[in-house]
């Protein structure tokens, strides 16, 4: 404690002894204060950026983990397409529903509706079909369901009429 006080004194003494540029130490202080404030502000900004980045990384990692399970779900669903309506298949179907529910709860709801207008936010066109019964630009078939932001639904869309 005392050592600090001693160290400060000679500095103050020389500053006061010099006559004209009394403003020089003031300028130094102002500059140092400015630098200090900038450093504190930068620290604060880094902290904010870091917490935003953390949020983003968390979302990205969750999406990455969820995505690698999608092919498993797809294949289970394709398999069920070949099953008959026995109690065994029913049980497996319930399991699939459960998995779809899990994804929805994680924030990736399933998109598999047909008859809706094509929307690039949730659909990706894989093929175009002539379908006289459907309005143009409507989803006529879902080739592979979509899940939230993980993956758009791969769809067949009715042709636009020229």
């Amino acid at each position: 404690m005392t050592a600090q006080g001693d160290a400060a004194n000679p500095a103050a003494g020389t500053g006061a002894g010099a006559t004209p540029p009394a403003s020089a130490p003031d300028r130094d202080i102002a500059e140092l204060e400015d630098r200090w404030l900038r450093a504190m502000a930068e620290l604060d900004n880094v902290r904010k950026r870091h917490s935003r980045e953390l949020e983003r990384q968390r979302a990205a990692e969750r999406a990455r983990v969820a995505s690698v399970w999608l092919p498993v779900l797809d294949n289970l669903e394709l398999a069920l397409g070949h099953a008959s309506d026995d109690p065994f298949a029913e049980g497996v179907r319930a399991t699939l529903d459960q998995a779809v529910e899990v994804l929805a709860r994680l924030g990736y709801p399933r998109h598999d509706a047909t008859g809706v207008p094509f929307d690039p936010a949730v659909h990706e066109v894989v093929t175009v079909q002539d379908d006289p019964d459907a309005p143009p630009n409507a989803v006529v078939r879902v080739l592979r369901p979509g899940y939230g932001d993980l993956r758009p639904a791969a769809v067949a869309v009715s042709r636009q009429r020229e």
Partner: protein
Amino acid sequence: MATAVGIDLGTTNSAIAVVEGGRPTVIASAEGSRTTPSVVAFTESGERLVGQLAKRQAVLNPRGTIYSAKRFIGRRFEEVDEEVRTVTFDVVDGPNGSVRFKVHDKLYAPEEISAQVLRKLVDDAGKYLGEKVREAVITVPAYFNDSQRQATKDAGKIAGLEVLRIVNEPTAAALAYGLDRKGHETVLVFDLGGGTFDVSLLDVGDGVVEVRSTSGDTHLGGDDFDRRLVDHLADKFKNDTGIDLRNDAQALQRLSEAAEKTKVELSSVTQTQVSLPFITADSSGPKHLTETVTRSTFEQITADLVERCLGPVEQAMADGKVSANDIDEVILVGGSTRIPAVQKLVRRLTGGKDPNMSVNPDEVVALGAAVQAGVLKGEVKDVLLLDVTPLSLGVETRGGVMTRIIERNTTIPARRSEVFSTAEDDQPAVDVVVLQGERERAADNRVLGRFQLTGIRPAPRGEPQVEVIFDIDANGILNVTARDKDTGAEQGITISESSNLDTSEVERMVTDAEANQAQDRRLREAVDARNTLDSIAHQVEKTLSDLGDNAPAHERARAEMLVSETREAVSDEAPVERVRELTDELTQVLNGLMAAQSSAPAPPPGGSSATASDDDDVVDADFDRV
């Protein structure tokens, strides 16, 4: 200060980067991906889509979806005959022989399309940065002529940007590696992306980068490798089943995705499994595609694609009058340079030189553009250069190990503290040994200084709290203070030579630590295990004395026997297995004793005393008794 960005405006995909905190980083799009497809679509309903969304509707709207605008920008209609034939939209002759895209009876200049892509990139970046982006450095291939460069600049203007500079892609790559700051060098930049291949030879050094020669193949890239795999898998499947998957949109979609994934995997493993169950079905039932693809098979079916890279490299070297021996550095750019066969070819052509690929090859151009933007804005000028601690700093603790307080590479000035305690009952003083280094054993590190804190009031071990504070100022001067929280007494030392090690000494110490990592970890585990065992033995003894005659005789006998075995094991430095075994047994005994204690009528014991030592951040220090 407004932020300036760097943009890699690509044929297939584009990327944007910014210098943040002195380092360039790529900014992800609003959809969360690090690149944005260079695609713009005009829908029937008059909507305009850019990037991922435009790409998703391309099949539905082939004539209204513009891609590869970069192949047309700044060129004359008569020059683009070839390109016109490969795209699905209409390309027409515009004013003064220029190129125009015709969509729904409206004409668009290529620079207007590129402007849309740029707009989307800077808008997304603005959202990330929390401020509007107004200035940018944009990259173009080294072979672009004046008119192509001017048109790219105009695209920036249309997008509302001030284009600080148009920079060559290979130059940006060299900047990302900081090669311009080194001495004079000849650099080969090998860029194999999704659909284009470029080779450039650069003269680099003393802050200047000049292009000596360029060559390439405007229609060669990773997509070609994907198609080979699709055909390979589809042909095999057709042989086995008679069904051509390429005629089934759903199957082809899955197959194409699987092909790219397989290709990417084969860059890091030598074989992988393609598994597409229920890919199709016929009257006999469902069909599955399961196929093992080895790297050598992949290399066979793509050998000619890799060979096609050879000609342009030789051409560039001939044009630049450079032989393999003259090349000082090789930089790999573009995602497809991750393919091992491609890397092998590059090594072969450059006399076995190890290429630079530590910067992500599909981001290096955008990163280099951001560096250039940062330099032009003087962003790097005003940064205060902050020092770091070259080696970790800490104190010696029980068992002769080093406990780190300031990790190496911590930016200074810095202040860190930790609370320690005594290792013995009624210990009146602690020795603080200040260490520097990366090894676990205290004796393997450098002793910077030592001092003693005396006058600790008599107390059971683990109870006194001694705060040890490490404070390094901006000049690297280290102040270590130990303070008894109970009495407020403190003692300290100032060490000025903590930072004046030469780099070779620092390197030696770091390499030593790396070389001995496994051994050091085992040592640390052993010491930690012994310390744990010792604490439990201590608690057992304490509980026994608290219980007095209330301790069941057989439990007492067993406990005393185990405690004496423990003392022996600790002083003999018994192997970890033995220590863990004793720890388990003693823990059981302790639990038994504590059960007896809580049912005994004796003075109510502190049930928490068993866990007190783990409760907070108090570390038992190896403070020798004086």
